[in-house]
């Protein structure tokens, strides 16, 4: 009896596919146990039962052998192409092992109405909802591309009408479809923020997204959207004269540096509270304030320093003549905190600093895209900015390229990252794995070991801009400055995830498990990719350890 392996050893029966026998064995042992006296034993017994039931649900190896013939092709590069696939990619295609990397809107956001049924028979109301969904995608992805521009008036009307149809459908649909619509809209709006901004509030009213705010199990997309929703509400309120921080808001919204009188008029504490508050909770609101005004408040001391402030203001005006505006921003930032220490240095240092700023800005743009300046990096995450600055300044001697450093930090961020950042991390990993698999040699293996040095992933333009967007998200969440934790993380992959991986990879269960155990297995890369993709398909269901462990 002791020869049997887990789970059968715990259940005391021979391996079987008879679920009735498994349940009976479990029931018999349970009846003979006093649960409170053997808590660990009970947990193990349940695990054994669940494992045995899972094994019983697996198809027999013989039946599956037919699927193994094309194993060589499974990870082939055959269908990878960057053309936009204009066909509607349904969920069915997602289950294919070698589906192409496709970030067209319809592939990223499969329509939630038809669900996972490959050939659904839709009612008239469902067809209307499906059409509304496609309209919504057209509005949020103009020309099939992500856009950060605000919607036009016509687009707003079209979008709101389509959203109205989707909400009405959700109200009368069953739980499954309601849930699918709820999830899909949340996901869509989070991904297309800020373009989706005007649609979030009506969707929140219908689906009570804010009701989930702050809950441990808050969905990742909603966690993001709820913060933005609260931000929008705060923005509305703070513009009312009665709001305690209204004066501070009005002051910081005014263009130009703060003058002596302004400093007397507005309480410094309120300015501080407003700035720390929005930076922590609604960082997007800072762009509504005047950057120069904010800096002048942050750099200048209190009212007592009014005189020296006036002097510095004069210096700033001189520089303004010499250097162009963007560079000056950098100089002001560098001068600010050190103040009088700079006084003795020759003026040349200022020009050098300006050049250095330009260099940093170029590096920042390479990593984060979208015209990101170094000052933005610093504002988003000062600790990361420090290392980044050091790496750029020693350029050739640097042990690692800034981009590779950012990537390494992104991978190492698992310990500190919250759920939504973990999903972003999974998105990045999927993108890299996909790129690495196109490359010859051991690029994929290197990537999996977390070794990103000298690894030119040869990303396409599209992939690069996506990577930049994802890295920006991690930067703003301040997880890139975290010290990368070494060591392995151990985690259990739940049964349904294994099933999804089997489906995606097309491997037999044995080979899959072998590849999971052995990092050097030739299947490992494909298995890792299957895991990442399976996780990304249903991030809400995945246990946090698995997300962390990716």
């Amino acid at each position, binding site marked *: 009896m002791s020869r049997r392996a887990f789970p059968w050893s715990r259940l005391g029966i021979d391996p079987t596919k008879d679920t009735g026998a498994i*349940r*009976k064995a*479990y*029931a*018999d042992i*349970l*009846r003979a146990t006093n*649960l*409170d006296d053997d*808590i*660990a034993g*009970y*947990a193990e017994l*349940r695990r054994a039962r669940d494992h045995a039931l899972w094994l019983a649900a697996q198809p027999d190896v013989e039946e599956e052998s037919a699927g193994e013939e094309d194993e060589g092709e499974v990870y082939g590069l055959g269908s990878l192409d960057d053309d936009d696939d204009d066909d509607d990619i349904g969920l069915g295609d997602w289950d294919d092992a070698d589906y192409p990397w496709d970030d067209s809107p319809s592939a990223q956001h499969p329509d939630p109405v038809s669900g996972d049924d490959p050939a659904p028979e839709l009612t008239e109301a469902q067809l209307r909802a499906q059409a509304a969904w496609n309209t919504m995608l057209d509005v949020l992805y103009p020309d099939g591309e992500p856009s950060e521009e605000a919607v036009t008036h016509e687009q707003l009307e079209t979008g709101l009408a389509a959203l109205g149809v989707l909400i009405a459908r959700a109200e*009368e*649909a*069953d*739980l*499954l479809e*309601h*849930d699918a619509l709820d999830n899909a809209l949340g996901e869509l709006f989070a991904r297309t923020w800020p373009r989706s901004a005007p649609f979030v509030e009506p969707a929140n009213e219908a689906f*009570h997204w804010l*009701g989930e705010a*702050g*809950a*441990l*199990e*808050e969905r990742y997309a909603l966690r993001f959207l709820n913060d933005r929703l609260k931000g929008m509400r705060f923005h509305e309120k703070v513009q009312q004269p009665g709001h305690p921080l209204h004066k501070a808001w009005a002051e910081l919204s005014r263009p130009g540096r703060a003058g002596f009188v302004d400093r007397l008029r507005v309480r410094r504490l309120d300015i501080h509270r407003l700035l*720390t508050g929005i930076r*922590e909770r609604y960082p997007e609101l800072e762009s509504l304030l005047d950057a120069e005004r904010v800096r002048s408040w942050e750099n200048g001391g209190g009212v007592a320093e009014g005189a020296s402030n006036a002097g510095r203001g004069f210096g700033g005006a001189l520089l303004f003549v010499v250097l162009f505006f963007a560079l000056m921003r950098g100089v002001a930032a560098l001068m600010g905190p050190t103040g009088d220490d700079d006084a003795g240095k020759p003026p040349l240092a200022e020009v050098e600093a300006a050049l250095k700023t330009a260099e940093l800005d170029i590096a920042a743009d390479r990593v984060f895209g979208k015209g990101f300046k170094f000052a933005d990096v610093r504002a988003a*995450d*000062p*600790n990361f900015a420090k290392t980044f600055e050091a790496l750029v300044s020693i350029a050739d001697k640097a042990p690692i390229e800034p981009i590779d450093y950012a990537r390494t930090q992104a991978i190492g961020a698992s310990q500190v990252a919250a759920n939504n950042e973990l999903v972003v991390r999974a998105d990045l990993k999927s993108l890299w794995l996909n790129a690495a698999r196109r490359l010859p040699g051991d690029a994929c293996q290197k990537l999996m070991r977390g070794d990103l040095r000298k690894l030119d992933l040869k990303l396409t333009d599209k992939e690069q801009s996506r990577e930049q967007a994802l890295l920006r998200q991690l930067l703003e969440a*301040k997880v890139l*400055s975290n010290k990368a934790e070494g060591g392995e993380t151990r985690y259990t992959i739940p049964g*349904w995830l294994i099933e999804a991986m089997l489906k995606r990879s097309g491997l037999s269960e044995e080979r899959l498990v072998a590849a999971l155990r052995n990092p050097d297995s030739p299947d490992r890369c494909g298995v890792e990719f299957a895991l990442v993709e399976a996780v990304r398909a249903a991030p*809400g*269901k995945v246990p946090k350890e698995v997300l962390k462990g990716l």
Partner: protein
Amino acid sequence: MTFGMLVGIDLGTTNSAVALWKDGVPQLVPNALGRELTPSAVSLAKGGQSWVGEAAVDRMATHPADTVTSFKRMMGTASTVTLAGTTLTPEDLSAMVLRSLADDVEAATGERPTEAVITVPAYFNERQRRATRRAGEIAGLEVKRLINEPTAAALAFGLADKGDREPFLVFDLGGGTFDVSIVEMFDGIVEVRASAGDNRLGGDDFDAVLARMVEPQLLGHAALEGVSVTRRDALMKLAAERTRRALSTSEKAEFVLTIDGKSAGTMVTTEAFEEAAAGLVRKLRDPVIRALRDCHIDVKSLSDIVLVGGATRMPVVRKALTRMFGRFPNSTVHPDHAVALGAAIQAGLLSGGEGLEEIRITDVAPFTLGVNTATRDAHGVFHDDIFAPIIERNTPVPVSRMERFFTLGDNQRQVTFAIYQGEARDVKKNVKLGELTVPVPPRPAGEVQVDVRFTYDTSGLLDVDVAVPATGLTRNMVIVDEDDRRSQKDIAESRKRLEKLKVHPREEADNVAMLARAERAYEGFTGHVRDVIGHALTQFQGALETQDPRLIADARDALGQLLDEIDAQSPL
């Protein structure tokens, strides 16, 4: 071996019931009026006279300030009510109902029950559960176990034929609480897979919606002039409940308030009510989704939707359910009896009742349990109210889990863990259960490790162990014990307070209830009808004074018949 008598009690928001495991089946015990349900209502009068149940509900109309219902919603809070000069806690009030149920059992079996299994909503938090335990003790009942209401209902449902069942969903919408549980049965094992709920949603809220809906039409009415707000609200509540019930069987119903001879009424249609209640109906969806998500069960693979709780009779709720699940719910169990019957089955299990040898129940922890932790963010700002879960919700119980924490400050001398229950990331939004402090050796930040182990057993006791491996020091705290020790004195005091209250002799229950009912009717009607009631009431009181049981019974029957006839007619 002698066992005390063990009963199963459904302590509900609107109605309560008691049942026994007898002769291999669970059996409900009727109250003094011969009914299986006793309204959870209490009324007091100056001088310490008290009413519980039906009579108290009738006194709601005549003495609203001295009568209280729905006090289950206050369980676990510090609020109290003052009735006729006596201040009572929600535990005291629940204890009065429990005591009245125990009286009924004693009358039926000749033996006083000393132990009980009491049901609580699955989504009751630890504090609410503790309050329920205390209520049992005040009533002189040792609470052998608290069992979740949907679990009890599932037992009653599943034991009807003892067959295996694929996962089914118990939808329990009572007067004040809402629970959803997903349960599976095989080989005599009743396994709860997940529970979710809303402990502030029930039939009462639908009544409130109805009352709010008609209020504008009624407010200016002459009948309501000069009526105190307490009285008006009480009458509105009673009228709303009546109207809601009427709407369960017809398309429209009259919402009528009759006060001191004047009536005010308005017509309510099902359609208008459904529209007004849409917000509440939407709230029913979230717990269902949460429970399904937690146990990874697809709504399509549910074998049945079992309805429990009086509020599931509402067509508006049934309609929403049919839409949500894409099929008709199962209504084979009695929505008002299932929970008490299930409690009796659990009582039978605990006392080794015949026919139950093969049955075992496994349940889950309905809430996440954890401690507060602190971190410093990238700016060095200190955040000390982050919830670190240790036992996640819907984990099968019993369960024991350990988490490791590290000191955050250099030369920190002690670590304090506050223990919380709830689902919010911010501990301030969760329920605090207790606090535990351990001294640690002074070392640089992050070098001292503290292990926290939570053990949650089948009877709902949470045991917390904190250990510092560096010094070998351990601290232990059993959450429930801690609280009980403090409250032993309170319980004794409460018991004394309740003993002072006078209870009508049981044999008079019929008369007391009839008097209260006749008085309510007298105040509610006008003109000729009122005179008729007044006349019959005087005759009944006269019969009571003769102390002749036969005369009294005849007069009571006559009065009852009259009131039935009057109730059957529309009061307008």
